[in-house]
């Protein structure tokens, strides 16, 4: 299919029609898995390395949100980089498409097959390779679960530089491949900064060893940056080297109730000002989100009812100093009527309980019904406007409309629910959400990525020329397009298969 280059507006109008994802996607002419292929995989990976029975495959074919179901006939579970290399070389030669999969906790359907792509799971690649106690550099295989890595580091006085609700299941390779954000990005920055090295395997089996754990290395182009956030479309990440900061000695969490979103923004401004270098997280949630976690997970609101809640966390090396700063901050927000009420604690069990209120919203939403999940970056001042507009727009059709997210990063998680999938509701949401975001010059996917949900929406946030460059890179690294096809890059860029 040929598209004439045209202005951004015209394109976005054209793609607005396609913004309802994965409708009308046809299978590209890849090869189909044959018994001889399974035989070859078994020889490379051993008997436990290949799963083909239907009972086993389900978990790998369906995403966490249960919105996307693929039809893979085989799941491959390598344990070494060398096995990944041999598998990919074979698949590339045979023109068999592959979906790299870690913890399968992604929220845009990027980790499950669209058709019958083979799932390449990193779950058995869970060895920790090294830890440098002086620099904090941790090197491990891609299949290590985030929470396990953090537990390992806890014993050694360090902490992972990212944290997200899926920590008990997500794997570091997947985190890096999706440039995962999370609740500590405010403090530790993005993975583009904290990842020191990446080892990845290209579609043709070439192993790119850029795994060095050095803090500074300006020798040529920084190729690891290509893989970070590439959503498995440029290579399969097999090992990661990451910079881990010292574990904070004291963590305090305050949870406040605010009467308006403007006051929530004031909380953030005051927090940055008063807490400065010890601020480690700033999140918000609305009354609806609180209602969802109370109803579905029996979590208790520590305060009385407010339209908005803000969570501010500090992490520092001196408990007394931090507590004092936190108390001054809280006295100020209370006395200036920025917060109507709040609670604060440095006790570990209470800190965890307060975080649950924010981290388990996603879980509560999934129990509530079919979830329509959006993740946008917009100027902080406008962060809640979109939620209000959606509420009005979908009134009567949506069961629940809620907004919450990483206040400090300008990242809104907008979620709607309904009982069973409702195309009418979906049509009211998309493309309005994307167009509105584009008008604010925001990002239609702040941290969740594009996956199979939003590839065609890329033009709302990126120019034609930029996407062309992405396409050129994809062609260079994966000319047959076997790595995670139908994802990330828009439809008009999917490689035309000619054999």
């Amino acid at each position: 299919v040929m598209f004439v280059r045209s202005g951004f507006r015209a394109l976005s109008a054209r793609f607005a029609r396609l913004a309802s994802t994965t409708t009308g996607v046809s299978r590209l002419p890849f090869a189909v898995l044959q018994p001889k292929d399974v035989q070859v995989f078994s020889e490379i990976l051993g008997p436990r390395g290949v799963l083909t029975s239907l009972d086993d495959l389900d978990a790998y074919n369906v995403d966490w949100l249960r919105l996307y179901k693929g039809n893979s006939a085989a799941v491959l579970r390598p344990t070494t980089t060398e096995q990944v290399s041999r598998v990919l070389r074979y698949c590339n030669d045979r023109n068999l498409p592959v979906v790299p999969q870690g913890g399968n906790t992604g929220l845009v359907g990027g980790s499950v097959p669209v058709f019958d792509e083979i799932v390449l799971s990193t779950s058995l690649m869970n060895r920790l390779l090294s830890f440098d106690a002086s620099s904090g550099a941790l090197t491990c295989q891609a299949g290590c679960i985030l929470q396990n890595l953090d537990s390992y580091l806890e014993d050694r006085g360090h902490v992972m530089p990212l944290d997200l609700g899926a920590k008990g299941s997500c794997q570091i390779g997947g985190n890096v491949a999706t440039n995962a954000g999370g609740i500590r990005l405010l403090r530790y920055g993005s993975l583009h900064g904290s990842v020191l090295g990446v080892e990845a395997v290209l579609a043709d089996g070439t192993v790119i060893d850029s795994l060095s754990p050095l803090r500074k290395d300006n020798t040529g182009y920084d190729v690891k940056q290509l893989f970070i956030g590439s959503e498995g479309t440029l290579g399969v990440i097999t090992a990661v080297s990451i910079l881990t900061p010292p574990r904070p000695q004291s963590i305090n969490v305050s949870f406040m109730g605010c009467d308006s979103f403007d006051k929530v923004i004031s909380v953030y401004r005051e927090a940055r000002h008063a807490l400065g270098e010890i601020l480690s997280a700033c999140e918000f949630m609305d009354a609806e989100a609180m209602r969802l976690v109370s109803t579905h997970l029996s979590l208790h609101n520590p305060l009385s009812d407010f339209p908005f809640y803000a969570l501010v966390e500090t992490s520092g090396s001196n408990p007394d100093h931090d507590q004092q700063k936190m108390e001054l901050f809280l006295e100020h927000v209370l006395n200036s009527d920025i917060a109507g009420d709040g609670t604060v604690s440095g006790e570990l069990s209470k800190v965890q309980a307060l975080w649950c209120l924010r981290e388990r919203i996603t879980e509560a939403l999934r129990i509530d019904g079919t979830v329509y999940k959006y993740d946008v970056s917009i100027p902080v001042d406008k962060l809640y406007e979109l939620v209000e507009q959606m509420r009005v727009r979908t009134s009567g059709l949506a069961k629940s409309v809620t907004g919450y997210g990483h206040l400090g990063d300008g990242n809104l998680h907008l979620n709607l629910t309904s009982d069973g999938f409702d195309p009418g509701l979906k049509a009211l949401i998309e493309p309005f959400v994307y167009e509105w975001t584009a008008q604010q010059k925001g990002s239609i996917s702040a941290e969740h990525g594009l996956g199979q949900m939003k590839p065609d929406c890329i033009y709302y946030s990126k120019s034609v020329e930029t996407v062309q460059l992405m396409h050129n890179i994809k062609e260079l690294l994966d000319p047959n397009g076997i790595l995670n096809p139908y994802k990330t890059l828009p439809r008009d860029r999917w490689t035309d298969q000619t054999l």
Partner: protein
Amino acid sequence: RIIAMAVRVLVGCKRVIDYAVKIRVKPDRTGVETQNVKHSMNPFDEIAIEEAIRLKEKKVAEEIVAVSCGPEKCQETLRTALAMGADRAVHVQVDQQQYESLQPLAVAKLLSKVVEKEKINLVVLGKQAIDDDCNQTGQMTAALLGWPQATFASKITLVDDKLEVVREIDGGLETIQVNMPAVVTADLRLNEPRYATLPNIMKAKKKPMEKLTPSDLGVDITPHYDVISVEDPPQREAGTKVDSVDDLVAKLKDKGVL
């Protein structure tokens, strides 16, 4: 008719290692690592305070005195109790070294003396501390005072100057009636403790905290037993995965289960 008595409550608060913390046994096996480890109020004591506050909110209790025995850091725990709603705090100072061997009988003696001093007629304690799991202080305090005890309470009601307490026991629930003054120990389902909210946290700083020593109270806190060693429970062995039902049956037979 019976005149409703003014109920003056004493609540015990122990500072223990936070239940969310991974416990580590000291290499010399004399105890667990407590240095630089996060502590918080014993969860059952939080439940006790919450119950006392609810009695006060129902205008049944007139005043709540929170007591803690131990070193300086206990004052943090007492501040939390005050922030939740206790009126006054009493810190019975015991230095760090003596604190390590402070045992329930000594604590019961200290609490009894404070009870007499403060003219308390209702003592509410957590049923046990999560560090030693002794489950003795409440019972011993009642015995020393010669008061009735209602332990493992999951519901407390004051009816005509008597306490009706629903107790959690092995067979289910038992409802008893005890005369006042009495000692009650709180079990898990008694209530869900509130979070201390900011205005109260601020107010708590101004509430009175009295400091006493065991000798002020005329109590000898010498320990009566020694802890010989503290060890980790045996490591769980890894399980084995089986590939088929036949395999499972064979393995169960090997282990002599079938």
